[in-house]
Each structure stands twice: as C-alpha cells, then as structure tokens.
C-alpha cells in the first residue's frame, strides 16, 4: 500500500478511479505467464507471482505519466510500465514499485498512408492496427508473440522477431518518431518528433547521433529506461488482397484464402541443405514467410488441439522442414514468384508436400497473415517459453540448433519438458535473408513444480552453453545477474549499459529487474 499523501497525489493526477492500492487489485497484478520459472531461476518458490506492486495506476496521457514519474522520483518509489502486459517482463522486481498500466492510452494517433507509417499509443494491439491499415492496403510488422500484443511495446521495449520478418523486418528497425518519458520525468521526443515547429513522426534519428541506440538494442529495456507513450513505425504493403472472409465458430473458422498466396512445406532432409535453400529463397526476395521449424513444431502450427496434432503424420515425419509462404499483389507477381520457387525446387531436388500429401486448414493462411502462429506453442502442454534467441547468420542458427539437441534431450529424458526430439526451434529470415534468428520454444507444464523447475534449469544451462560455445547472446540477457554473466565475455558492455542507466535514471526509479541497475 501507498502512504496516504502519495496515494492522494496519484489520485490527483489520474483521478481516484484510476489508482488502486488495495490488496485485491495489487495481488491480481502480481500474476503473469512464465513468472513461475523466472522465480525458479532466481531460487524462489516456483509460483506464477512476482513481488506485489504498491499500487496500480492507469494514466491516460503523457502528461499524467510524466507527473507520476516525478512523484515516484520525489518519494523514491519505483515504477514498472506495461502495455498489453504479456509475460514476466511486465512485473515489478521489488515491493517498492507501482505498476503503470497503460491500457487507457489506446488510440491509433495516425495512419499515414502517403508516408507509410502509423503512430500508436501503448495499448493499441497489432490486430487492432492491422484491421485499420488493411483498409489502405498496408500491414504492420507483428512480433511472434501474436496480434494480441502491443506493437509499441515490441518496437520500443521488447524484442521483435515475427513470422513475416522476411517482408517486414524486425520491430527495433522499424521505429521512426518516439515520445518517451525518461526515468527522471523529462519528455524526450526522438527525431523529427522533437522539432519545435512542424513536428512530425517520419524519422526517429538525430539531429546528430540517434538516441534510438540508448532506447533499446536487439532486446528492449522492458521499462527500465522509461515509459514510451507514443511510437511511429513503418507500414508495409499488404502482401495480397485485403479481402478477409471468415466464417464458422472458434477455433474452427473457415477462411477464404485470398488470391495469389501459395504455401510450400519442404523437407530439406539435412541442415546443410536447409542452409543453402534458405539463402537461395531469400536472395530471390520472394517470401512473405520463410521459417524453419522442427517437424513437431510444423505439426503444431497446423493444429488447434492435441488431437488434431496427432493426425499430421505426413508432415510430422519430415526431417528438416522449411515453411515458405509466397504472396503477391498481382497475378504477374504471383506467377513470377511461383516460377522462382519451381526453379529452386528443381535445382535443389525438393518436393512441396502441400497439395500432394497434405493440405492445411484454410485458417492457417489467416493466422499467417495475422502473425498468429506462435499461439500453437501452447497446444501440447499449456505452457512454453523460448530459450536461445541468437541473431546473425543462418549458419550460426543451424549450428546452435544442432549443438543444442543433446542438451534439450537431457531434459526430455528427465520428463520435465515436452518431447520435441530436441529439435524444436524456430528460425526465420529477416529483410530478405540479410540476417536470421533462432529461438528454441520449449514446452513445459506450468502447473507442475517439477516441470517448472526443470524448465528453469534448462534455461540456465542453455545460457551457459551459448556463452561457452560463443553462439551469441540469447534473448533473455536481462537483469543484473545475466548482464554480469555475459558482460565480461562481451566487451564489458554491462559497464557501459550501467553508465547509461545511471545517466538517464540517477535515482534508480525505473524498475531494473529486467534491465540493469546502476549499482
């Protein structure tokens, strides 16, 4: 609970109805998905609850956020901001913290069809924005987490791989103008957004050095460097017709597949062959989706239940699958892309099982267009999380995959994680094959203490493995412990990151549980 005088000041800012420090609300906000294994990794009881926030505040605009942050500085209370709030990164790391739930900041500020960008507030979801951008033939890059999450959070604070990354890149690289409340309460506006006269959102870099480099890296700062209240990011041409015809009842919808889309599911048989095929397809700049999944993962993306997963024998038997979705705006483009794919199939002696051995439900195509394939990771055990998260060449991604199989199998053998034969990864290309990332979705049972602890151990061992084998920094290098582990092996970057934290958050007010403390 808050001190009375602090509560009153918060109430004055957001209105009494938008601040709550009562037990019911604060306890509810301490729950989040995957919190149990984060607790386990920190040596705590594997419960799905974080520290209980002192209060929950619902600001409605940037001025209110600024005033709250100033009060936090005045009374030495930390804050943790959340948008759509998926995952442990939204949770406070101490008892001296308030949550800023940004759900009232839910407006699409602008869709600029001519300059190809959108400006949104934190609680706009990918699906909400996509529905609007489709009206003008455009699409938004959505992270693998799905269309239900906040594109602002992905662009400013989280990570940003998506199924459509060959076509739409990475969230961090799509950022234009930004409105950012710093941990000391000052409002920073990046790029052209900071102009005093004729301000607009079309670029986020300069004048001079780009402060986007302080805002985030490959991973975001998870509210550890302030609160992002608006962001502009690029929009991309919708890859095919925007007519979206859906019928039926959840989850078994029927979708009328738009003109000019074709799916290829190919068994490359070996990782070496996959590398060559991956690079060739991406060099040709034809894919909308180009992802490698394990055969098990492949079965999962075409399934909505365990029962339906089990009938995917023709594809689950594949050794090294590659999923390619091509999409086109015109018939000419479509025919050209098909010709390229046909040539690649012949040159590399490949066979497309789609249309011959297997036909997915039409809903798959809708989910692909909405970047909604990640949810299938939950089917088998009800819970999953990804270890790894490296990003560089396809070669390092595949090497990581191969080298990590025995490690994963060890935990499968113990019965603490789901059996994907150790091969369960997702690798996607970005920007037509200029770089690739790998993550290893790992299924576990969130309700089983043994499984949660096993998952935590598996995660820890993966981190050590990646570090020792020089495979790159995984996603979840965040928090002091991880930075202190990886920093000395990575040019002592943690020292620089701490200096940034100290300079921009001198009072340590932005919760650094998933970032870094100034120490």
């Amino acid at each position, binding site marked *: 609970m808050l001190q009375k005088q602090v509560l009153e000041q918060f109430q004055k800012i957001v209105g009494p109805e938008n601040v709550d420090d009562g037990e019911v609300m604060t306890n509810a906000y301490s729950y989040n998905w995957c919190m149990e294994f984060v607790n386990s990794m920190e040596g705590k009881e594997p419960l799905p609850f974080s520290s209980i926030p002192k209060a929950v505040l619902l600001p409605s605009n940037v001025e209110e956020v600024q005033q709250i942050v100033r009060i936090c500085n005045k009374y030495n209370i930390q804050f943790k901001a959340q948008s759509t709030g998926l995952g442990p990164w939204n949770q406070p790391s101490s008892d001296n913290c308030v949550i800023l739930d940004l759900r009232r900041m839910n407006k699409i500020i602008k869709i600029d069809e001519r300059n190809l960008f959108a400006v949104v507030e934190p609680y706009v979801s990918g699906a909400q924005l996509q529905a609007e951008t489709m009206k003008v033939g455009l699409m938004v890059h959505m992270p693998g987490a799905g269309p239900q999450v906040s594109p602002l959070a992905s662009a400013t604070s989280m990570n940003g791989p998506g199924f459509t990354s060959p076509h739409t890149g990475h969230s961090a690289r799509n950022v234009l103008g930004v409105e950012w409340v710093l941990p000391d309460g000052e409002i920073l506006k990046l790029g052209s957004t900071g102009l005093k006269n004729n301000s*607009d959102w079309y*670029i986020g870099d300069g004048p001079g050095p780009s402060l986007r480099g302080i805002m985030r890296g490959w991973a975001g700062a998870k509210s550890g460097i302030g609160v992002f209240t608006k962001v502009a990011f690029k929009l991309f041409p919708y890859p095919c017709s925007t007519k979206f015809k859906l019928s039926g009842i959840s989850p078994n919808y029927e979708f009328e597949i738009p003109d000019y889309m074709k799916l290829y599911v190919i068994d490359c048989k070996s990782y070496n062959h996959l590398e060559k095929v991956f690079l060739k397809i991406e060099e040709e700049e034809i894919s909308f989706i180009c992802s490698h999944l394990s055969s098990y993962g492949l079965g999962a993306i075409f399934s909505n239940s365990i029962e339906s997963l089990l009938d995917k024998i023709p594809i689950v038997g594949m050794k090294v699958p590659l999923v390619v979705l091509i999409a086109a705006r015109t018939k000419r483009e479509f025919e050209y892309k098909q010709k390229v794919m046909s040539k690649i199939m012949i040159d590399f002696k490949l066979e497309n099982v789609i249309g011959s051995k297997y036909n997915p439900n039409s809903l798959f195509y809708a989910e692909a267009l909405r970047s909604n394939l990640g949810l299938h990771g939950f089917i088998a055990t009800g819970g999953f999380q990804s270890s790894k998260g490296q990003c560089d060449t396809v070669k390092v991604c595949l090497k990581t995959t191969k080298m990590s199989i025995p490690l994963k199998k060890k935990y499968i053998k113990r019965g603490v994680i789901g059996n994907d034969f150790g091969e369960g990864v997702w690798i996607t290309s970005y920007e037509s094959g200029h770089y690739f990332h790998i993550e290893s979705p790992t299924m576990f049972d969130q309700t089983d203490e043994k499984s949660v602890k096993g998952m935590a151990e598996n995660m820890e061992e993966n981190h050590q493995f990646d570090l020792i084998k020089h495979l790159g920094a995984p996603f979840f290098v965040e928090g002091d412990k991880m930075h202190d582990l990886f920093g000395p092996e990575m040019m002592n970057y943690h020292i620089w990151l701490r200096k940034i934290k100290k300079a921009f958050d001198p009072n340590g007010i932005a919760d650094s549980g998933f970032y870094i403390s100034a120490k």
Partner: protein
Amino acid sequence: MNDYESEDTLFHSLAKICGSKNITIDPQNLKLYSNDMSFFKGNSPNLITWPSKTQEVVKIIKLANQMEFSIIPVSSSSKYRHHGDTIPRKDNSIIMNLTKMRKVISIDKKNRVVMIEPGVTFEELIPKLRKKSLRLLLPLYPTGTKSVLTSVLEREPIIIPRYHWDTSDPLLCTEVVFGTGDLFRTGTAAGPGTLSQQKKVGQAHVNPMGPTQFSPYRVIQGAQGSLGIVTWATLKLELVPTVQKVFHYHSNNIEELLDFQQKLVKYRLCDETFILNNLNLACLVKKTRNEIEDLANSLLKWNLIYILAGRGDLTNDKLNYLEGDINDLMGDSNLEHLESSNLIDRNEILECTNNYTSEPWRTRYKCSYQDIFFISNFENISNYIKKVELKYPENLGIYFQPINQGTSYHCEFDLYYDSKNEKETKDLQGKFNEISIDLMDSGAFFNRPYGYWAKEVYARHIEETSIALRKVKSIFDPKNVLNPGVLCFDE
C-alpha cells in the same frame, strides 16, 4: 612547460605510438586541414598523425585524455572534404588521419557482407566487390576518393530505398574506440567470444543491434567522430544484377512525379530511384559546363529516374512482371504531365548509379557548390522548393531521395557558384545562411547538423534532445577529446 615544449612532448609521445614518420607538423600540410569546401572557419591542427592499427588509435586517444589535446578523425585524404566537420575548433588539436587503415578485411558473398577499415575508398571497394558479383548500397555517384565508412557513418542517403530497411543501413557491426580510449565492438560482434571464435561458429557480424539492451552503433553514427573512432565496420551488400533497365520520366509537375515514385517504392517495384531537377541531372551525367547547360535546357524541370533489375535465368520474367505492374499503376494514376525521355543515354545513368566519380559531380557546373540538405515528409517538399527558389532562382540543383522504405525523403538543394568570384561567394554565403535558417524555421529536419547549422538546429529542437545527447557524450567521451564543439557539444 611552454607551448613549444608541450608540442615537442606531444610529438615524441605520439612518435612512440605510431612512429615519427607517421606524424607531420609541416605547416603546408596542416593548413590543408584548417579549411574545407564549406564556409566554416576553424583552427589549424598542431599535427597530423597516421595510425595504422587499432591499438595505435587506442593509445592515441588515451594519450589525449592524459595530455588534454583534441583529436579530429579524418578517414580519407580526399581534397574534397566538406561541411566543416573535420576542421579543428580548438587550439590544441591533432588530426588523426585513418587512411593507412585501408584493409578490406573480408568479403562474404554468402552472407552479403563486407568488413572494411575506415581508409577504404569507393574507388577501391566498388571494383573489388564487383569481381565477386556484389555491390555496395551507394549514395548518388560518390566521389572515388571518399571513405566508404565515413559516408555510412554520416548517414549519406543510399539510392535504393527498398534496401534501406533502417536509417542506419548499410551499417552493421563496428569496432570502435570510445573517447575514453576503451575498445568496443557493437552488434553481434560484441560476442561472446573473440571475432575468430565467433567466425568459427558461423557468425558474419550481420546483426547491428545490441549487444543486448542498447545499440551503441546508432549513437556513433551521425556523431561526426565526437563519441568514438570506428576502426572497422561490416556493411550490408547486395548481389549485382545481370540486367538493369533504366527509366527516365520528366515533367513540370513535381507532385505527379513524387506520387508515381511513391507507388514504385511502396510496392518495392524498383531498385534505384531518385528525382533531380534538370540542372542536377545534367550535372550528374555531363562533364563540361556547356554540355550541362545544353542538356539542362532540353529537359523538363523535374526528372524521375528508376531502375529495374534482375539476375539469373528468370531475369526476363522478373522484368516483364515489374514493367507490367508499373504500366498498370501508371494507367490507374492520373499522370497528365509525365513524359518518357530519351535525352540521356541509359548507360550514362547507370555509370552514376553503379560507379564512382573521380571528382564530385556537384563541382562540374561552376566548380563550387554549397549544399543544403535535410529530411522531410512528402507533404512539405513543394513548400521547401518554393522557399529556396524564391531566394536562389538560378544555378540551383535539386535532389530528392526517398529513404527508409519510403517513409521520408532526403531533400537537397545545391547552390552552385564560382568561388573565385569574391562578390558571388560573399552573396552566396549570405544566401546559404538565410535559406538554411528559413528552412529550419519552416520545420525542415536537419538530421545531420554540420558546422554553423548545429547551433541553429538544436535551438529549434526541444531542449531535452541536447540534454540527452550531452549525457551520452559524458559517458563515451567524458573529457571531450573527440572533435570537441561539434553538434550540441560545446567547446
């Protein structure tokens, strides 16, 4: 210690690091660095040093912190330096000339990436890459003697917007020595592991983001050498097309051309594309003043160039699809004033988009020019044209380059003049300042604030920007030894 003793000590200390033959105090040489092609006035450096290894750069920067002198990094020996960013502003300054660091460290065709040192120039790199069927993402007809790395660090616009996925492209990973003298590697090059350990597992340093939760390469870029000195970088490449088809349309209606071009960019239909006014297109493709004037007089005012390209067995299929789709777009649009032009040989245009020039193409018309450039959205472009033309109606070259996937435009106004004519030069200087200020007041976003612009630019930006940038400076160059006085970093 008096000034002479102190200079002597500095000379000897530097000589210990990189050898006395790699240092000069020759006044004539020093004078070359006290001015450039811009109007910016600064000081002469105390000496010039040519390090050839990263460790020498580290030691010199540490020495600067210890002995309190300033370092101005320069990456090429080109006489065509511009914009005042390499002119010392303080008395006690040295030039760190990086031209001896000129290795092309690796060319990786499979991953479409090259690793180069700062002294590598366009005239060296373009042919080397072409031999391997690779191409750099080029600015418009770069000068051959210019450092490729400097061009990238200064965010010079590249001419293929669909390959401009982020403002920072084509810059990927870097090795940088911060103003503290600390060596660092950005992006995936940070590790874990040494570069050779990383290469062993297949990394090629193609991911610029990070390490982890910050991206220092973004703050180094655009810093005019004031935060760190980059000792190598990896750059994104593309495969060389086997066929390139050039299209040239001209019109007196800029909106119509911009509209059409926007569709080409939005649907990623073309590779290179840019818009030039008649004078600038003539300067680009012709060499003598007479040729330039003849061509400029034949062309309509605005000229759109775009290039379609293909590779391999399906090249014709690709070109047919692209041309067919573009024709449909043209048919669907109301392009009343657009005319296809055959006034320029297509190979002359390809030379400018694929190659380098021995001298800057902007010096061809009247030997001298001053360029005013900034970023804009589409809507304000016509207004900016009106403003500049009102104040400088003649001898004005104009260039619009869509960047960053078509989300904004690099707008450039080249004011041509004869610098040997004192009155013309003086008038031009006044106009240059007046037009620059007028554009800034109208909201033009000068994202690369050089020389005298810097103070005016930051005054028109919210104060928090300068405050935040100074915090960054205090982290990476706390003693202000690197290029002091540039941007919002006071002397």
